[in-house]
């Protein structure tokens, strides 16, 4: 009478899904390389960009009075301070690879690494 929690179909489906995830991850890892531009956008609009090889500290004015402090040092970009309560962006670590980003949702701030052309890498995964 007891309903089984998992069947053969479930295991097959989960296996296929894990495999898909691994393929997406691999594709992204293989196509990544060092970027050279740090691009800052607020609410979808680009407000500033800096070369990754120059050390600076930049105050970002985010959406609705929020602010974040961006630091570029030794070829790595990271958030050192944020006005939002969760401080997720500060925990996202230091980024330097093309296409990597730090995102602060409450302040709608996106810090992105791009290559020399200033173009964001295209991902086909979203199609």
């Amino acid at each position: 009478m007891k309903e089984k929690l998992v069947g053969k179909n479930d295991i097959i489906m989960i296996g296929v899904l894990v495999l898909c995830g691994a393929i997406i991850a691999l594709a992204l890892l293989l196509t990544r390389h060092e970027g050279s531009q740090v691009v800052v956008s607020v609410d979808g609009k680009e407000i500033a960009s800096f070369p990754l090889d120059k050390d600076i500290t930049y105050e970002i004015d985010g959406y609705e009075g929020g602010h974040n402090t961006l630091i570029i040092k030794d070829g790595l970009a990271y958030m050192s301070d944020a006005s939002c309560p969760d401080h997720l962006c500060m925990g996202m670590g230091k980024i330097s690879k093309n296409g990597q980003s730090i995102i602060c949702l409450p302040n709608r701030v996106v810090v992105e690494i791009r290559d020399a052309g200033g173009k964001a890498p295209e991902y086909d995964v979203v199609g």
Partner: protein
Amino acid sequence: MRTKKITTIGILIALALILSYVESQIPAFVAIPGMKLGLTNIVVLTTLYILDVKSAMLINVIRIIIVAILFGSAMSFAFSFVGGMLSTIVMILLKKSGRMKIIGVSAAGGITHNIGQILTAMVLLGTKAIAWYLPVLWISGIFSGVIIGIIGGLVTARLGKLDQI
């Protein structure tokens, strides 16, 4: 709608709200937006099995609206609405197909929840940069989905007995 059903749905919504709150108090173990255990999904999943599709949908919609009013913003409402709706619809369809057990249904729900959130974030923030998080959220969606599926299955088995009293 019978009184018993209305009461049951009310209790389930209250439970979903408490789980939302509990989850918001757990610090994100990895600093990636949208990476969550999805505790509230236990309620939606269980409802799908012990009640019916309509009740699961109703609980999901009411929960998302109340959570947004209590703890959220317009932004977080958009995320959880798209993610929650997408995953609930996928779970309903998979369950109806009759080929999956509760863990498969829940794992698919976990993934679609995360994908829905990522797509919403890409649209709202106008950036493709977030696609970077897709593989991580994809895998974490599967794992949290499986865990939620196990819990949901255990809860469903016990609640099924309750109904016979």
